[in-house]
């Protein structure tokens, strides 16, 4: 166990610093290659032009409205999917007969690609936000459900028997036995669902349009061939994704601060 630490000290490098160097090198490469004519500059603008387009976007009110719109749709869809996934997962998971009866249906519905529903979503709802929400909820519901189903079966037999010996009633068992066991799985499910939901939100905005959002602005930038601002918006979508990942990881650590796995990982 001690060898890696020694190796790291000898190398004298800092992972955070190296990571920064990596990003800067990537940016520099994308600056140099189009300018040198290796890549076509009209389709792959140099980094500096993307950055200035990004700064232009930051100054526009409509840009921030789009960011707000994307985040609202994303959170709305995520909350619906998570609540539905937890409730159904706990109900189905705690009743063995229900679990067996639904297994084949879940296995059949889950692999259906969410964008296959896109044409349906478009014709079924006249309001674009509803079509997008249908896609988002459908795609992000499954990871939550599957994780909760796994979590409910993971209850420690000794803990279960202890709870029964103490004659905890149904509600108390759910509160003190099922929920703490399931919570880590729920958080994993939410983490997976959050990134899926964001992808589907932006995809829906891009393909369906009609709502204020980053995806819709990308579609507009594409059709008006303002290439640098298209790249700038794509960078923004990536940044929102990174923020979403960081936020869900933080939330996971916060909610599970009592959990042995988290406690072991971050000694205080």
């Amino acid at each position, binding site marked *: 166990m001690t060898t890696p630490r020694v*190796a*790291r000290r000898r*190398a004298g*490098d800092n*992972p955070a610093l*190296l*990571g*920064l*160097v*990596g*990003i800067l*090198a*990537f940016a520099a490469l994308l600056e140099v290659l189009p300018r040198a004519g290796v890549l*076509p500059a009209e*389709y*792959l603008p140099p980094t500096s032009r993307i950055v200035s387009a990004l700064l232009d976007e930051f100054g526009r009110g409509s840009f921030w409205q789009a960011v707000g719109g994307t985040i609202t749709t994303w959170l709305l869809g995520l909350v619906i999917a998570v609540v539905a996934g937890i409730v159904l997962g706990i109900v189905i998971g705690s009743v063995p007969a229900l679990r*067996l*009866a*639904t*297994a*084949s*249906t879940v296995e*059949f519905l*889950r*692999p*259906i*690609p*969410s*964008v*296959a*529903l*896109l*044409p*349906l979503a478009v*014709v*079924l709802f006249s309001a674009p936000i509803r079509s997008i929400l249908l896609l988002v909820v459908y795609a992000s519901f499954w990871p939550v459900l599957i994780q909760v189903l796994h979590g409910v079966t993971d209850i420690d037999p000794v803990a279960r028997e202890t709870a029964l010996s103490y004659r905890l009633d149904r509600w108390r068992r759910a509160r003190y036995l099922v929920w703490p066991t399931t919570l880590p799985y729920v958080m994993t499910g939410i983490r997976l669902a959050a*990134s899926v939901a*964001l*992808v589907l939100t*932006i*995809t829906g905005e*891009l*393909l369906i349009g009609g709502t204020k959002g980053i*995806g819709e602005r*990308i*579609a507009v930038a*594409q059709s008006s061939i303002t*290439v640098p601002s*298209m*790249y700038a*918006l*794509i960078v923004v*979508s*990536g*940044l*929102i*994704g*990174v923020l*979403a*990942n960081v936020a869900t990881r933080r939330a996971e650590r916060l909610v599970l601060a009592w959990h042995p796995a988290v406690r072991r990982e971050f000694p205080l």
Partner: protein
Amino acid sequence: MSRALGRAGLLLGLPVILLVTWWFASAGSKSFYQPPLETIIKVFPATWTAARFRSDVLPSLGRLFLGYGLAVLLGIVLGVLIGAHRRLRALVEPLLEFLRAIPPPVLVPILILVAGLGDPTKVLVIVSGGIWPVLLNTVEGVRGVDQVLADTCRTYRICGWLRMRTFILRAASPQIVVGARQALSISIIMMVIGELLGATNGLGYTVVQFQRGFEIPEMWSGVFVLGLLGVLLSLAFTLVERRVLSWYHGVRAAERSGR
């Protein structure tokens, strides 16, 4: 015998109930957008003919397999490289974190700009979405190889391709398979998206043509086909996984019973 019947009942019960409910609930449907299930099933054979299969389904599948294969291959190669070199990993990790967070569909407009509307673009679209889960899982798998086994390999001077094949790839394979499974469902999604945004044939293109032409029962049947494709490929993957990882499941089962 009655046991098998019970199992079959559990397996098929709910799907049958759902379909029957749908059949009767939609039977008298006058809604233009929600045709009766009967109509959808009736138009199915006429819509998905052998000719349609050749002109739309096969090209889609070809692009899907090519793109998916490339994504898995590239993901494993890059993942092994990055996972095996600690400094390289530190160098590219934040960058990968950012690139992975970009929703793959937004790259489609760029790829169309750069590579045009042909087949290469559609394959690239699939690769751009499918590579991430394989790459990241391979990095994790290679990073997590057993230290004792690594030392054993060094002691026996097992190196080069033999070490790669019998140790690194083998040890990382459960993780790689997890990544490949995620990549498969993403690849199907990217295949459809690539065909929605500018194509002249393919499954996604056909379904959207039906939608734009207001041929609603045909559109529903197309959604069925896409759903079936997802389900069948996921089944096929499970079969392959069981073969490839039979040793791993065996080890896990032995560990569990040993405890």
